[in-house]
């Protein structure tokens, strides 16, 4: 899922300082699961902003709603009525949701309440970790199911570099060296010889370096 973390409240407040009434839109997708932009977080943010503004002697009116998904036009269509009489929309979705709202409600000021961080999963309650760099050409079958693109700090394809020590990456004692993990796993699988193959340079044009990407499935298109 996409992992996002809320911006500091003073930053969110600054984005809407001239507004009297705002709509806060949560998302029931990824950001609900990572506990940063679901229904509960949307209500909490709305009331925090109201309290803050009341203390500043400049009260704020808020309306809240949580869409099933903000990354699907069909789920943001019903917001139309709520959008009409607000000065701005605060989206608690990932960056995709913010853009979908801005695109649909083009005459409204739409601001992000979140920093969209990465694609990952949960480790234990309250801890999420990055796992995929969305490179568009998955090579996990060559690296024992551990992604060097995003988990190695240098995206090395023929690791580990000389900074790997005691299982940790040179950047921090708190970061596992992806290539130590790859080595351990390939060893356990009896496939160390695979690591002797020189991995060729990656085709980054399949990643974001080729410009914004589009996926098309003609077989499921209607009409």
């Amino acid at each position, binding site marked *: 899922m996409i992992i996002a973390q809320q911006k500091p409240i003073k930053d969110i407040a600054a984005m809407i300082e001239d507004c009297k009434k705002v709509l806060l839109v949560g998302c029931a997708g990824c950001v609900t699961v990572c506990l940063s932009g679901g229904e509960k977080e949307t209500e909490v943010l709305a009331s925090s902003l109201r309290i803050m503004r009341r203390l500043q002697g400049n009260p704020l009116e808020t309306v809240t709603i949580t869409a099933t998904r903000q990354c699907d036009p069909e789920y943001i269509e019903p917001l139309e009525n709520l959008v009409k009489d607000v000065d701005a929309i605060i989206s608690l979705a990932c960056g995709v949701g913010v853009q979908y709202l801005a695109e649909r409600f083009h005459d409204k000021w739409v601001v992000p309440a979140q920093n969209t961080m990465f694609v990952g999963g949960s480790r234990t309650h309250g801890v999420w970790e990055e796992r995929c760099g969305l490179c568009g050409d998955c090579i996990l079958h060559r690296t024992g199911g551990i992604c060097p693109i995003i988990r190695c*700090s*240098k*995206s*090395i*394809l*023929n*690791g*580990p*570099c*000389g*900074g*790997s*020590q*005691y*299982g*940790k*990456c*040179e*950047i*921090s004692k708190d970061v596992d*060296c992806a290539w*130590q993990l790859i*080595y*351990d796993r390939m060893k356990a699988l009896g496939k*160390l010889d695979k*690591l*002797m193959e*020189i*991995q*060729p*340079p990656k085709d*980054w044009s399949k990643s974001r370096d080729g410009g914004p990407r589009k996926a098309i499935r003609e077989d499921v298109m209607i009409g």
Partner: protein
Amino acid sequence: MKTESKLQKLLDSGHFAVTAEIGPPKHASAHGIRHHAQMLKDYVDATNITDCQTAIVRLSSIASAVHILDCGLEPIVQMTCRDRNRIAIQSDLLGAYSLGVRNLLCLSGDHQKFGNEPSAKNVYDIDSIQLIYLMRRMRDEKLFFSGEPIKEHEPRFFIGAVANPFADPFEFRVARLEKKVEAGAEFIQTQCIFDMERFERFMEMVRERGIHERVHILAGVTPLKSWRAAKYLQTSVSGMIVPDDIVERLKKADDPKREGIEICIEQIKHIRTIPGVHGVHIMAIAWEEVVPEIVERSGLYPRPKVE
């Protein structure tokens, strides 16, 4: 594959090579590097020029190399994968060759987190092993990285790489060295050696695989100025092993700098007895002036002459 590198001629004819390292300054004057080049030129066969080491912005490695050549010393240009994509790497190396550079050392580069631009975007378009492979192919098969032919004047570098016997997983370090040799590395400079026992074990594994017969290994040494410097390397630099007895020896010494030089000379003398080591790489970080004494007292002076 033969190149015009003097370092290669020396190594290929069986001499025990001596290389040093010059770190370019954090300003736009070449005065210091030229001074160091003058000082080192009769004592070493070639000198590395670091490429913004520890990700600190410094005068460019290739520009420094031109100053060093001008002083009559052969440069080894370091090229990291951190700051340039494949377009910039190729362009810069064509330029370096046109300016007379004949030795190239390919590295990943330290992560920018450690430098003075920690919020920079890193590149890592290709990694060090891919860089070695692509530069070897550029020379021997006259192809750009993309596979497009180079019609004429392909750069013909003597290609080097680094190896760190002190990083983990230890068992894989020799295998990765072999991978670099497979890719096309012709000389190897190691990380600074303080743990001689581990280096001996490393070399034993190198010999078992016969790698020493396919590549010239230059053992890295660093004279230490103080026990604090030793402690810093021991605790704060990932991929480094500094045994406690070295820290203690420097701590007890009346003149720690002298002691640091003595330790380094002892290490070089020891390294010269290890089969399969073809030279020594002296990294006197911000202490280049001690290199002549170290070379001389290690019995490595005068340096052999090549055509």
